[in-house]
């Protein structure tokens, strides 16, 4: 089963994933029309700034067992096993925020949702774009990410790739491969600037 995998070291912080996620969870589905909808659709993935202001796409990990699910007394949170997705039933949610307190990643937000009950504030989080997946599409955030910071793949294959990558970096003859020197330079500069700022 394919899952969204985050490669934070590649994120350029363009926030495209946020726009695409919000548009995918809007009534009209297109960015330009979505921004004038009411309530305004909001992203379920959030790009945060790291220690050196580098981008970091933060999204629900669909943990198993899921702390949010265990914290939800009314039982609004459940797992769709076919896609391994932790979902929230908006009709059952009582907006108690227990799930957010339990979530170690802070990915649950509370607002009225274009696709939820009208006027009701509910807990909202990443749903792995199951509506898109049912249409044969991959999650919107993965589709828009032009730098491969988000991928949609089999966990086993992804882990194998990661293992090989780490193994290569450990071998004696390792030549550090820099896939995006400009980006590394930018990050180096950002880091240096931050360090200068912090040391003053």
């Amino acid at each position, binding site marked *: 089963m394919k899952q969204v995998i985050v490669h934070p070291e590649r994120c350029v912080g*363009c*926030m*495209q994933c*946020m*726009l*695409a996620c*919000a*548009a995918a969870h809007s009534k009209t589905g297109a*960015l*330009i029309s979505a*921004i*004038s909808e009411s309530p*305004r*659709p*909001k*992203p379920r993935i959030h790009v945060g700034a790291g220690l050196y202001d580098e981008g970091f796409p933060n999204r629900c990990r669909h943990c198993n067992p899921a702390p949010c699910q265990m914290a939800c007394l009314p039982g609004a949170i459940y797992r769709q096993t076919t896609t391994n997705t932790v979902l929230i039933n908006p009709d059952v949610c009582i907006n108690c925020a227990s799930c957010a307190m339990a979530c170690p990643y802070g990915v649950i937000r509370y607002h009225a949702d274009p696709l939820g009950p009208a006027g009701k504030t509910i807990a909202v989080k990443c749903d792995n774009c199951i509506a898109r997946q049912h249409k044969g599409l991959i999650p919107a955030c993965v*589709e*828009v990410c032009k730098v491969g910071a988000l991928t949609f793949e089999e966990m086993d294959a992804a882990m194998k790739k990661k293992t090989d990558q780490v193994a290569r970096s450990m071998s004696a003859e390792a030549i550090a491969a820099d896939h995006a020197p400009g980006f590394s330079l930018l990050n180096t500069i950002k880091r240096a600037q931050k360090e200068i700022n912090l040391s003053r």
Partner: protein
Amino acid sequence: MTHHHNYTITKDGQLLIKKMESDQVETVWDRHAAQQPQCGFCDLGLSCRICAMGPCRVDPFGEGPQQGVCGADADIIVARNLCRMIAAGAAAHSDHGRDLVEVLAEVAENKAPGYAITDTEKLNRVAAEYGIAADGKTPEQVAGELAHAMQEDFGTRKKELALVTRAPEKRQQLWRKLNIMPRGIDRETSEAMHRTHMGVDNGWQSLLLHGLRNALSDGWGGSMIATEVSDILFGTPKPAPTKVNAGVLKADQVNVVVHGHNPVVSEMVMAACQDPEMTKLAEEKGAKGINLCGLCCTGNELLMRHGIPMAGNHLMTELIIATGAIEMMIVDYQCIMPALSKVAACYHTKMISTSDKARFPGMEHVEFHPDNARKKAYDVVKAAIENFANRGETYIPVEPLDAVGGFSVEAVVGALGGTPEPLLDAIKAGKIRGAAGIVGCNNPKIKHDYGHVTLTKRLIENDILVVDTGCAAVATAKAGFKVADAISHAGPGLKEVCGSLGIPPVLHFGSCVDNVRILVLAAALANALGTDISDLPLAGAAPEWYSEKAVSIGAYVVASGIYTVLGPMPPIAGSMNVVELLTKGLGEVVGATFAVEPDPEKAAVLIRGHIENQRRKLGLDATEV
């Protein structure tokens, strides 16, 4: 999976895309696909790269930042970005005009061998508008004084540009009242860059108003000078037959293609190609002659004045190289995709860049200046002939189509018997409902030529006379709308009028800078009626625009009082305030607005509706649309 039918409506385009696919050469559509999805912030106009506290972006969903580091909100950021697009477009057109004035000045000093004053009558007429008397002077003396006076238009020494007096009196007063009368061509662009610097003009309305003034400095300044001086130097266009599409290339001749915008280069290349010495050389190398063809606007310039055939418009510029039949492509500036040399490297085509301000990777640079252009032209044409020996297999996919170009205002008024009255009479009688100027580029976001051709077809069916320029003009020529017989596509009234004059229902008005010919004609019609341009049953459209120049054109057309429908959405949707001002509010300010409608069928309905409305307001018969 191939999609070449989805990319273009043209047969030559489809066949050449297919060939490039099998040759495994990338096209603009491949690169466009690889860019998808494009950045939403930039698309909405919500990213700002103006200063180094940034780059900044405003979250259109209201969740993230709502202002840049400096505090600029969505309205300010969008307005600044748009203003800068206008400034870039106006700068491009006006710098092109400046190059022509420079040639005029050097012709006056006898320092530009090969160039001459071709239309002395026009020289004297334009000089008179600048207050320069011609009597007792040689054309060179007049040219020298005119060049000097025009150079002053570029600076800041005047309160108003010279040629704005061509606009109706009411329009000029409105511009003065709004404080958007253009003062100096360079001044307005410079001021646009100043105002959009961090911490200067943060009134999004005042920014946009200055954008209009900057655009007017292009339309009634830089572009108008470019057209007038080109006419003086190279001749005022008269209707002449030509051929269009990829079929204009000849399998047995040396094919030389000029691409870009500046006739200063292409006119000299033409002279070299037509020299019998060169033809002889070509024959010695086994070719049956030299075939000069055009692309984009430098092609339009040559087509309008000399009937040089036209190989294609913007999105055809890469494809045409894949014919394998082009010995040399000579480029100057604007709209030349840096990808061209990569494509050319897959075939035998030699690429030559010619302008001191435009370099391209992988092209040989042969710099043309007024004093050496003639010699350089011979050098490159010789090299093209030499390259004929390197030709491999060629693939010229279609037969060329006939077209007529060369409709300057002078030619149109001439065809009407010396005054615009007969055209006005036909409009008053309702045989012609009104006129539309269809202009602008191609954009891979819109199926190639579909917007231009569909809109034109619907308008002429509705008895609306179409005048067009630039890539739009090439598109309709390739669709067969630019021959006298094309009146069969027109509605009964337009058919009758064009039929009796022996002209097509779609008139080729020239290159993109030649949009000013449309302004001059509109002003003449308004003056003949004693009214303002905004009262006339006119409309503008740019169904497939892509360039910053097109943004400037759209802005000066609207500021001149002509309702304009755009195909692609400009990057302004991040500020609904800006969108509303441009599509509604401007009506109360300058008497015209923009509309955005990517579907040309619907755009045609908008234009017909607008024209009927204008007729009603003028007290002419009007139908409900």
